[in-house]
């Protein structure tokens, strides 16, 4: 990462912290504390399961909301405040600006996830009093959730590079929803013929496949996550994010900012 990208990333991180993004950790801490205390009273035999499912779902949803709502304003806010012109008047290329924003928000989400992961493991320790080897799977699920954040950050940034914040939020959210149905889209394409089949298959591969990055239920039951799935998902998330960021750069490079 060159120094200009690094500086933009650092400023994006600082800005997110100044915008009190990490305050969501308080809400998360309260949620996990309440879950840890209440789960033994309302759930039978599945205390660990509930803590893992609830904890990882909350980490995922909190992060997705942050990624979308911060990501959609990363470019448009700079244009509205006219700070973008100051940045671009310096020896900073437009692609460096996009890359810096991407790394800054991704870093914020990684830090946020790190603290929430501590919360999940604390609640798990409170409920079951000990850790077992299968709890390592929770870390893998958290890693996959971070991969989801990276894709969503790239998507939000992509939409932010040419659209208004409200439309960017709608587009990013719908892509998240459609991405959760990616497997169904593929199954649907198998039932169709001709041009429709090509179109549906194309759409299924075009949208991000979030269902492949969701192993929450699997790790909650202590089932192992295969190593090749970790490798393939990592490569997929990186390749997909690079593709989306490249599209964002292509649009932003040609955008008339006057």
């Amino acid at each position, binding site marked *: 990462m060159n120094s200009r990208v690094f500086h933009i990333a650092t400023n994006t991180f600082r800005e997110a912290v100044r915008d009190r993004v990490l305050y969501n950790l308080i809400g998360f801490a309260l949620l996990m504390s309440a879950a840890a205390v209440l789960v033994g009273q309302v759930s039978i035999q599945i205390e660990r399961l*509930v803590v893992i499912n609830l904890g990882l779902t909350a980490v995922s949803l909190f992060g997705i909301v942050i990624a979308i709502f911060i990501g959609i304003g990363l470019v448009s806010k700079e244009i509205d405040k006219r700070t973008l012109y100051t940045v671009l008047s310096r020896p900073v290329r437009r692609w460096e600006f996009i890359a810096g924003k991407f790394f800054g928000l991704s870093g914020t989400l990684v830090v946020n996830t790190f603290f929430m992961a501590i919360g999940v493991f604390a609640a798990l320790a409170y409920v079951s009093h000990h850790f077992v080897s299968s709890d390592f799977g929770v870390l893998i699920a958290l890693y996959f959730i971070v991969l989801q954040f990276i894709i969503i950050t790239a998507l939000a940034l992509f939409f932010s590079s040419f659209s208004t914040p409200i439309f960017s939020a709608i587009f990013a959210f719908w892509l*998240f929803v459609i991405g959760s149905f990616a497997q169904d889209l593929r199954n649907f394409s198998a039932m169709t013929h001709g041009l429709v089949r090509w179109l549906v298959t194309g759409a299924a591969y075009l949208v991000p496949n979030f269902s492949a990055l969701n192993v929450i*239920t699997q790790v909650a039951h202590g089932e192992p996550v295969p190593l090749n799935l970790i490798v393939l998902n990592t490569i997929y998330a990186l390749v997909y994010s690079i593709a989306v960021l490249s599209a964002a750069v292509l649009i932003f490079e040609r955008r008339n900012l006057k």
Partner: protein
Amino acid sequence: MIASRRVTAIAGTLLVCSMVSAALLIQAVDDLRPAAPLQEMLYISSPKLLKRLCLGYDGLLADIYWTRAVQYFGGTHSRGGGTYKLLWPLLNITTQLDPHLIAAYEFAGTFLLAKPPEGAGDPAKAIALVQYGTQNNPNDWHLFYDLAFIYYDLKDYRNSAFAFLRGSQLPDAHPFLKIMAAQMAEHGGDLNTARMMWTATYETTHDKMIRANAAAHLRVIQVDEDLTGLEPLVEKYRARTGRFPESFTEMISAGIIRSIPLDPLRHPYRLEPGGRIVVSNPDELPFLDQGLPSGYVPRPPKLSPVD
């Protein structure tokens, strides 16, 4: 500054008063509205639709539905039982969302099977659900045990033995399953078999309600055995005196028994006219067929104490 403080004080007071009033009002609304129609309703009954709507977070939704199923059962049970018409849909949704939630199958195997007011009394659905469990968790012997138990309860000893046998062939299966497969094939209807089955359930389950249910059935078996042992002694008294004893004290005086016999909850048995032996606290012994006092009307089921 003073004006600002005044506004703060008024707004703060209004906030607290309004929230308290809102809580009190909602309590009054709850008292006015009947609870049952709300509880006997599922807004979304299709597991497939729910699976789509939850955007991949199906594990958490399954936990919520499982908790809801347990609370629905517990709530209905504490109000005196019923037909539990929502129990199957709730358990079905739970297991469709998370096919590996073993506790839900165990619960279904016990409480979908039990007759009202103790359960839903729907063995076909209990079998279907537990079989779905065995398909999705083919290496879990507990589910084959639950399936065998349902068939046993239906007096289908052949299928019960087969389910025990399938379970016994799994890795880590409890050795008890192999014994039960043989026992079921040879002596399906015996009281001893019943005792073995319920004891195993009592010892292997972690679910408090299932454990209490097993304990209640074990007490019934104990009563059946007690009555089987006491009835010949009453008959012996009659043969000796020409009449039925009016109380167990008379039998003690006659030297036939040493003390007043006690039921599994340590309450004394009673004698009714005609030499009929009955329990003195039938409300505490659900599932009882024999030994009920004449004219006894069952009260809401009570599954405690566990031990």
